[in-house]
């Protein structure tokens, strides 16, 4: 348990502000392209 907590703490300490900024930017851009694009997906094997 303690070991898991230590690992989690180490992982959390590696996530800095820049990582969060990248994730937010990618999320916003994903919303932008999904929002302004309008392709009609047929998917695979639907024909």
């Amino acid at each position, binding site marked *: 348990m303690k070991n898991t907590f230590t690992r989690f703490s180490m992982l959390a300490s590696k996530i800095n502000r820049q990582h969060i900024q990248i994730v937010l930017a990618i999320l916003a*851009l994903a919303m932008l392209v999904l929002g302004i694009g309008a*392709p009609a997906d047929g998917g695979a094997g639907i024909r």
Partner: protein
Amino acid sequence: MILLLALISGLLVGLGWAGWQHRPYQAPALQSTWLAFVAFFPQIVVAYWPATRHLLPDWLASIALLISLILFAAFAWRNRHLPGMPILLAGLALNFIVIVANGGWMPISPQTASRLTGNDILGLMSLGSRFGQKDILLLSQNTHFEFLADRLLLPAWFPYQVAFSLGDVLVSLGIFWLLAHPSVKARIPPKERVHLDYI
């Protein structure tokens, strides 16, 4: 899906290029990021969330879609200085024109739609009804700006089928360039970097 594929490809190229140059990847410096989240909300309700997409009448849903597009246009315009964003804005403009001209939905012809669903399923749909998330079934001759509609298709032998517009192509190119480009900057030699630190 093709739009997300362009986004992921651009990100991978950007990350790969940054890694090749031993530099951290720089995310695009977006302004007014909150606007993208606000703009996307109406589309979740009317297009993407299966539980709510048929709650609103079509006329109200199309208005929500147009409001969302205008908010996205404001967001893209606010970030127009970023590489790739002018191409993306051009794609947005083309999609906006054809959507507005056809009652708030992206038109798709029955011929194109039959490639996606098959004729048996398409036979159950009537002209003018919603197709997919943001499309509407319209005959080509009844479509305004038909050349901007969802009329482009992948080759028939391709396992994944999707119909997309000229605007979608530009949006895909723009997002790819935007994410692949930020890390492409001239690397400052270590000596100069030390010098700049003193300044």
